[in-house]
């Protein structure tokens, strides 16, 4: 294991985060605060509690997930896409590093950054609403697993993307609808039966539901199923990544 290389990639990526601190950290905090003001204070004041949890608190796990997913995919994809775009990827490819080490460096940094912002959002949320975490370890498990899985997802998007449009396609067009329709701002039980059934095809529903369970012990689906869905997605991504490494897809061809 070339640990020096993993460290180098990781810290190089984290340095990028430091340079773009304003954009990386301040903007998600502002947008989350806006969600709290609009949904928590303005809309939420007219909504009663959901399953015994105040509306502002209810939406917090969903908001954290929204940020975590977009940040991790964004960081993960940009981290590997940018060197491909500028051409500096030649150096990574001609270094004595295995693909596993490249992934550890890039995905590790993307997940770290995503989690840092997630924690900041959690902190911001606690300024607006009363939060209690019923199962901190489970919460942490969902948090870390989601961060790693979606950073990996982003990494694969970054390898696949041929231009900036493709790079932004999934984070901008696919993730927000899935998160918004995955019960970030409501319980799917509030939907008509048909849409409830449809919602169960949305993988993000399981993430948000499981994560919310770790806070308030309320869930749209069994948290064990939520856990299985994330682990399943992670396994699919690992399989895809193994294929990418073996074939040199879009990197060494």
């Amino acid at each position, binding site marked *: 294991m070339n640990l020096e290389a993993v460290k180098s990639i990781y810290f190089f990526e984290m340095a990028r985060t430091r340079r773009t601190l304003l954009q990386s950290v301040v903007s998600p905090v502002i947008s989350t605060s806006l969600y709290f003001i609009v949904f928590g204070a303005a809309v939420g004041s007219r909504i009663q509690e959901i399953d015994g949890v105040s509306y502002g608190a209810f939406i917090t796990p969903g908001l954290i997930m929204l940020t975590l997913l977009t940040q991790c995919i964004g960081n993960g994809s940009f981290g590997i896409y940018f060197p491909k775009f500028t051409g*500096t990827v030649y150096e990574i490819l001609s270094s004595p590093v295995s693909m596993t080490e490249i992934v550890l460096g890039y995905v590790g940094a993307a997940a770290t950054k995503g989690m840092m912002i997630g924690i900041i959002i959690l902190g911001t949320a606690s300024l607006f609403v009363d939060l209690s975490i019923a199962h901190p370890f489970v919460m942490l498990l969902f948090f870390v697993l989601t961060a790693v899985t979606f950073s990996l997802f982003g990494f694969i998007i970054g390898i696949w993307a041929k231009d900036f449009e493709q790079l932004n396609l999934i984070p901008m067009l696919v993730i927000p609808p899935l998160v918004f329709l995955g019960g970030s701002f409501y319980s799917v039980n509030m939907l008509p039966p048909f849409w409830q059934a449809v919602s169960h095809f949305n993988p993000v529903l399981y993430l948000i539901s499981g994560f919310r369970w770790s806070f308030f012990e309320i869930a749209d689906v069994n948290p064990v199923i939520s856990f299985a869905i994330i682990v399943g997605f992670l396994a699919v991504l690992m399989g895809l990544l193994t294929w990418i490494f073996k074939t040199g897809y879009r990197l060494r061809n």
Partner: protein
Amino acid sequence: MAPIVSVSNLVKTYASGFQALKDVSLDIEEGEILALLGPNGAGKTTLISIICGIVNPTSGTVLVGGHNVVKDFRVTRAMIGLVPQELTTDQFETVWNTVSFSRGLHGKKPDPAHIEKVLKDLSLFDKKDNMLRELSGGMKRRVLIAKALSHEPRVLFLDEPTAGVDVNLRKDMWKVVEKLRETGVTIILTTHYIEEAEEIADRVGVINGGKILLIEQKKDLMKKLGRKELRIELQEPVSAIPETLASYDLTVEDSGHSLIYDYDSSGERTGITTLLTALAEAGIRLKDISTRQSSLEDIFVELVGAKA
């Protein structure tokens, strides 16, 4: 001594079906400077990319220091430094950080003293805290060299190091290469400046259409360069070379209007005086004479032209 880089029967066919390398074999000795000459699209960059591990070969093997570049990539890539053709840099990084990053990537522990030495050798040390986007093209090229040297490689690949570089910087670059050679680093450079190959290489290879057309010691090529051609234009065309001139191995051109005499200008006797006397004695009247030195460029153009 075993060659430091040994390429055997290397073939690369890209997904598009384009065959960039057709059965290339090549040995590179430790400590030498090898210049690979070839026009654009000849396969130079593909060859380098495969040796460095950026591109997967279709078939054939490459050994660096006796290790296979695919199977033992950790060993081989740690031995190699690569300076790419394009000026690809992280625009927003500082010189110091980007060079240190390269060292780490190659598995070497941080060594600020070494980075400092490399930067000083390349006259980059006073720019160490500058962002790369603030540097000129020539300076960026030096940064790429510094990155390639950051992990103390034994083999250095310079892909078109002086493309688009002004004359002064090119000469500076040659000095850098010369200095590196003194430290025992093996250097492989690609270029389409023949002058560059003549100036700094020990051995010259010509590659075109994915094949190595020639690979020779520069000394031997210089001998060929030493050949000169004397062109004698005649007042009246000759149908055949007179018997008395047979020993000069002349060729007739321009339907008998010109005689061509090849000679070695570095030799003690060029034979020009006796040839001219013999011509006069044979009653052949001269219109004009001119001499021309065949250059590496001629050899190159001839090879590339003939086999393209």
